[in-house]
C-alpha cells in the first residue's frame, strides 16, 4: 500500500522533469509552426498567448497537469488529431507485435532455460548459453536488417519450398486476412523477441539451477517421484517465481524497444508514431508517449513486487 502511494509523487517528479526538458526545445510546443513561412511573428505571438506559452513554465506545467488528469494529453500537430486518439489508434498494432514477441520469448526462453538447467555443463547447456550471449549482444536493428536480407529480399529455399516474407508493413491488402497478417508479423515479432528470449532463458537457467540443489528436490527424488514430475511440479513452480519478476520488469522495455523494430518494419504502432514525431518535434505527442511508457514502468515495477510477494509467501512488504 505504501509503495502504491509512493508511485504518485514519483510520477509527478517524472512529469516535471520531462516537461522541463521538453520545454527547453527551441520553439517548445510551437516548433512545427516556426518552420512554416506563412506564419508571421505576430501569429506566433498570438499562438503563444492562446496556448498560454507566455506564462511562466510552472504555470504551464500546472495547466498541462490539470488536463492530463482529465485524460487530455494535448493535440498532436504532426498527426492533426489529439495525442490520445493518435496513441489509441496505434495501440492494437503495437500490442499484437508485443504480445507475439512476449509469448515467443516466454515459452522458448523458459523452455531453453529448463533444458540447460537439467543438463548443466553439457553440450545442450553450452549451446543454450552461447545462444543467449549472442541474443543479448545482438544490435536489434542489424538483426532486423539481416532477417529482411535472409527472408524478405531474396527469400530462402529450403526442402523444396520457397519462403519469401514481406519486409515491411502490417498487411498487403486492405481487407483483413489472418494468413497475410501472420506473414507480416513473423519477422518483426522474432526480431523484437530475441533480446527477451535470451535474457529470460539465462535467468530461468540460473534460477532453476539454484532450485535443483535444494533439499526439497532431493526429498522429492528420494520419495521415488519421476524426474519429469519433480522438475515441473516441484522445481519449475519455485524456479519461475523470480522469472515472473524479471518478465514483469521487462514488459515496458518491450514497448520502448518496439521503436526500432516498428520503424524498420514500417509497423504502424506506437513506437513508429513516436519516431516520426521526433523529426518534427511534436511536443504534445513526445511528452504523452514518454509519460505513457514511464507510467508503464512504474506500474509494472509495482506489479512485480506484488506478484513476488503473492507467489512467495516468505516475502513480506510493509
Amino acid at each position, binding site marked *: 500500500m505504501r509503495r502504491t502511494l509512493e508511485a504518485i509523487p514519483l510520477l509527478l*517528479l517524472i512529469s516535471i522533469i520531462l516537461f522541463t526538458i*521538453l520545454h527547453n526545445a527551441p520553439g517548445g510546443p510551437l516548433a512545427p509552426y516556426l518552420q512554416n513561412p506563412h506564419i508571421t511573428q505576430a501569429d506566433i505571438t498570438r499562438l503563444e498567448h492562446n496556448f498560454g506559452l507566455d506564462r511562466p513554465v510552472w504555470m504551464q506545467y500546472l495547466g498541462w497537469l490539470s488536463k492530463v488528469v482529465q485524460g487530455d494529453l494535448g493535440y498532436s500537430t504532426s498527426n492533426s488529431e489529439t495525442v490520445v486518439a493518435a496513441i489509441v489508434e496505434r495501440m492494437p498494432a503495437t500490442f499484437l507485435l508485443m504480445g507475439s514477441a512476449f509469448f515467443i520469448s516466454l515459452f522458448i526462453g523458459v523452455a531453453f532455460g529448463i533444458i540447460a538447467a537439467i543438463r548443466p555443463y553439457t553440450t545442450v547447456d553450452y549451446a543454450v548459453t552461447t545462444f543467449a550471449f549472442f541474443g543479448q549482444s545482438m544490435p536489434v536493428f542489424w*538483426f532486423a536488417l539481416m532477417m529482411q536480407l535472409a527472408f524478405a529480399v531474396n527469400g530462402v529455399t529450403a526442402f523444396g519450398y520457397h519462403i519469401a516474407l514481406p519486409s515491411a508493413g502490417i498487411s498487403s491488402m486492405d481487407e483483413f486476412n489472418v494468413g497475410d497478417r501472420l506473414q507480416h508479423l513473423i519477422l518483426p515479432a522474432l526480431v523484437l523477441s530475441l533480446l527477451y528470449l535470451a535474457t529470460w532463458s539465462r535467468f530461468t537457467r540460473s534460477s532453476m539451477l539454484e532450485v535443483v540443489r535444494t533439499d526439497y528436490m532431493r526429498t522429492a527424488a528420494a520419495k521415488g517421484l519421476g524426474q519429469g514430475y519433480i522438475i515441473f511440479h516441484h522445481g519449475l513452480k519455485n524456479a519461475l517465481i523470480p522469472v515472473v519478476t524479471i518478465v514483469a520488469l521487462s514488459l515496458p522495455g518491450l514497448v520502448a524497444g518496439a*521503436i526500432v523494430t516498428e520503424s524498420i518494419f514500417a509497423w504502424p504502432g506506437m513506437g513508429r508514431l513516436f519516431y516520426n514525431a521526433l523529426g518534427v*518535434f511534436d511536443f504534445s505527442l*513526445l511528452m504523452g508517449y514518454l509519460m505513457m*511508457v514511464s507510467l508503464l514502468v512504474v506500474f509494472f515495477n509495482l506489479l512485480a513486487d506484488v506478484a513476488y510477494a503473492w507467489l512467495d509467501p516468505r516475502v513480506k512488504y510493509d
Partner: protein
Amino acid sequence: MAMTTVPQANLPIVLDEDFQLERHGVWKRFRRHRLALLGAIVIITVTLIAILAPLLHLQDPNAIDQVHWLGDPLAPGIAGHFLGTDENGRDLLARLVYGAQISLTVALFAVIMELTIGTVIGAIAGYYGGWIDYALMRLTDVFLSIPLLPLLLVLTAIVAASSNKAALGFWVIVVIIGGLSWPPVARLVRASFLSLREKEFCEAARAIGNRDGRIIFRHLLPNAVAPIIVQGTLEVANVIILESTLSFLGFGIQPPTASWGNMLANAESNMAIAPWVAVFPGLCILITVLAINYLGDGARDALDPKMK
C-alpha cells in the same frame, strides 16, 4: 590502492600480503575463463586497429572513389576495395576502421562519465543515509523509470531541432548518453556503501579524524570497486549498442563521420544489390559487444565468485 592506505590507517602489514594473494587469485580465476580471455584478445585487437588506423595505409574513409564508382556500391575486391564500397562509393574497410574509433571512444567516454556520476551519487547516498539518501534515490528512481532509448532520442531530437542535425557532435552524444545512464551504477554503489560504512575499518578511519571525503574515496571506494568494474565493462557493451542504435535512427553520430550505426542507416535500400554494406558494420558491432560481454562475465566470476 592498499599500499596508500597503510601509513594513514596504520594497518598491519599482513593485510598487504592478503591483498597480493587475493590479486593472484583474481588473475588465476580469470584465466580459467577461456571465453573471457578470448573476449579480451578480440577487444585488444579491435582497439589496436582503431588506434593504429593512420598507420594501416587505408583509403580516406570520407573520399568517394571518383574513378570506379558509378552510383551503385562496388562489390568487395573490386578496384582495391577489400570489402567493397558503400552507396556513396566510399571504401567500406576504411569506414569500418574509422567507425571503430568513433564507436569505441563514444562508449569509453560515456561510460567514464556514467561511472563517475553514478559512483559519486551512490557513494554520497550510501555513506550519509537519511534524507540525503532518500532524495538522491528518488532522483535515481525517476531516471530509472523513464525508458532510456526514447529519452535519449528526445534529447538528441531537441539538440537537432535547436540548430540542425550537424550539431549532434561527438561530445554531445557522449554527454547525453553518459549523463542519463548512471542510475544503475548509483544503486550498485549505494548498496556497497550501505554495508561498508558499518564496517570497523570505516569507524576506525572516522575515529582518527579523517574527513568524510577522504573516508569515502580513500577507504570505502577501493572496497566497492569490484562490482563497479564489472558493471562498467558491461556498460561499454550497452553504450556501443545505444550509440549505434541512435546513429542508425539518424539521431546519433552524423554523416559523413562514420560510426558503425550510421553506416547501416542507408544500407536497407541497397540490400538486394549490395548486402555487404549491411552485413559488415553490424558484424563489427556484434563481435565487439559479444567480446565485451564475455569479458564482463569473466571479470564478474574472477572478481567476486559470489556475485551472479
